[in-house]
């Protein structure tokens, strides 16, 4: 029989330490829906999504019941819509409406892929799609959008960076009556992965199969509890403990992904080895760092502690899964992490520190609430800085900042649910970045891109 201690450990992780599968995301290629008539194309998009993912939610719920493990989100990602828009022309928001209707019909909580990949330049349909993002996000409930503005191989498309500053601010303005939520559903990427199951940045890359199932695991609470059991241990021991815990968490993700793939008859893609926090108490990445010995997340030492955590999660997880992908690492979304929210509120955690932290962890400046009167050029400049970190370090980085329209430093914004809440953080706007951003052009790819 299975060891009693192991059984009780698993149950304790689920009941008391918020262990869960964060998301099962089905990737659906929409390339077969492309055509020159946008109405017909949008109908095909709705049909293909609802047909392909018809059983996604019930299958997820069945797996939850069989294995006793909560699966928090069931989601869908699709081919970047700019590719369909290139073929059909017309107003791309029609595709967003079709995606939204499909998401509602399926019962998924987000659908990602209102996206464009413009790291080297714009092709037909890309500019139209980017310009339509604010309207698409304000008109829909479930649609998420992302734009890849650079890669280590291609450099940074600064024209796209300039456009995205405008898009972020407009998305917030158009949804000012709903806590500027439009901007919370929009991610600007550098080195975007094509198989990421997490929102808002999930899309189904052009190199992916027709259909695929990807799984994102979570478990910051489990890691924190494991670290808490080692008072006085040195950091080598802490790294080992995190590795072992990450292994167990990831094995669970691998099992759920394999079973979901069998039941749905869709190939299994990857497990995303991520520590994704939620605003719930006991599910915070910041609290893991604090458990390691930092009084508050954001004090000197935070970047080093995060580097250790991120690396140990990957090392533990990689052997537990046959295919690893997506973003894989620790997430640091401020408004979705109880410890980060407290640290930001107290002023210890600043945007500058978060920027440094993104050099050693999974994603980037994520779910950061900034003053509503921020200029689009400043948002673009933040995106450019973050993209440069990703480009030079050959890693994914991203920016998801939310200009809180009508609010300023000291105010709070409340999204509710998994998106959480948080204080408006101070942005260093002592001088303007306008002239730099308006230059446009491309920042050339760095030397480290020349590996061939």
């Amino acid at each position, binding site marked *: *029989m*299975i060891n009693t201690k192991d*059984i009780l450990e698993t*149950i304790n992780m689920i009941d008391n330490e918020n262990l869960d599968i964060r998301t099962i995301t089905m990737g659906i290629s929409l390339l077969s829906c492309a055509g020159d008539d946008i109405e017909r194309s949008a109908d095909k998009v709705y049909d293909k999504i609802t047909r392909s993912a018809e059983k996604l939610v019930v299958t997820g719920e069945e797996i939850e*019941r*069989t*294995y006793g493990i909560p699966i928090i989100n069931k989601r869908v990602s699709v081919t970047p819509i700019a590719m369909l828009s290139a073929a059909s022309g017309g107003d791309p928001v029609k595709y967003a409406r079709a995606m939204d209707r499909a998401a509602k019909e399926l019962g998924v909580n987000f659908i990602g892929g209102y996206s464009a990949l413009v790291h080297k330049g714009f092709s037909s349909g890309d500019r139209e799609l980017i310009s339509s993002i604010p309207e698409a996000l304000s008109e829909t409930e479930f649609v998420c959008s992302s734009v890849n503005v650079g890669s280590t191989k291609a450099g940074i498309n600064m024209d796209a960076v300039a456009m995205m500053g405008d898009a972020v601010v407009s998305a917030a303005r158009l949804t000012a009556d709903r806590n500027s939520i439009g901007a919370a559903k929009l991610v600007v990427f550098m080195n975007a992965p094509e198989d990421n199951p997490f929102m808002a940045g999930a899309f189904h890359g052009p190199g992916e199969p027709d259909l695929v199932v990807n799984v994102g695991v979570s478990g910051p609470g489990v890691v924190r509890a494991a670290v808490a059991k080692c008072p006085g241990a040195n950091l080598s021991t802490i790294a080992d403990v995190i590795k072992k815990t990450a292994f*167990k968490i990831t*094995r669970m993700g691998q*099992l759920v992904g394999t079973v979901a793939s069998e039941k749905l008859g869709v190939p299994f893609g990857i497990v995303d080895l991520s520590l994704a926090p939620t605003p719930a108490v006991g599910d915070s990445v910041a609290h893991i760092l604090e458990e390691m010995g930092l009084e508050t997340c954001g004090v000197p030492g935070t970047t080093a502690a995060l580097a250790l955590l991120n690396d140990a999660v990957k090392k533990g997880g990689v052997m537990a899964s046959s295919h690893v992908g997506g973003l894989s690492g620790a997430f640091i979304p401020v408004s979705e992490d109880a410890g980060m929210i407290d640290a930001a509120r107290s002023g210890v955690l600043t945007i500058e520190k978060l920027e440094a932290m993104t050099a050693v962890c999974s994603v980037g400046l994520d779910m950061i609430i900034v003053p509503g009167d921020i200029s689009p050029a400043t948002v673009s400049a933040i995106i450019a800085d973050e993209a440069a970190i990703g480009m030079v370090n050959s890693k994914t980085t991203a920016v998801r900042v939310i200009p809180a329209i009508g609010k300023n430093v000291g105010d709070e914004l409340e999204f509710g649910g998994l998106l959480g809440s948080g204080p408006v953080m101070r942005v260093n706007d002592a001088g303007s970045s306008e002239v730099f951003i308006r230059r446009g052009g491309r920042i050339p790819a760095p030397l480290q891109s020349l590996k061939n």
Partner: protein
Amino acid sequence: MKAVITVIGHDTVGILAKVSSACAEKGANILDVTQSVMRDMFTMIMLIDIDGLTSDFSELSSSLEKLGEQIGMKVHVMHEDIFNSMHRI
């Protein structure tokens, strides 16, 4: 296929009997049972064969969870693969 039932809570009379009869009702064959009582905290782990179930698995787990609520215990019913995956290489 096998599943694991765990029952955790304050010790009372008849826990094993109630869980066993709920299993029998649904056609689950009990293969192994371990239990311990520390102070008055009761922990029971039961391995069952679910190949001969007369209902589907989720019905068995919801009826056992309901029974747990009635007797004030926390009951989990989980497919054994989750433990094998997490704790064995």
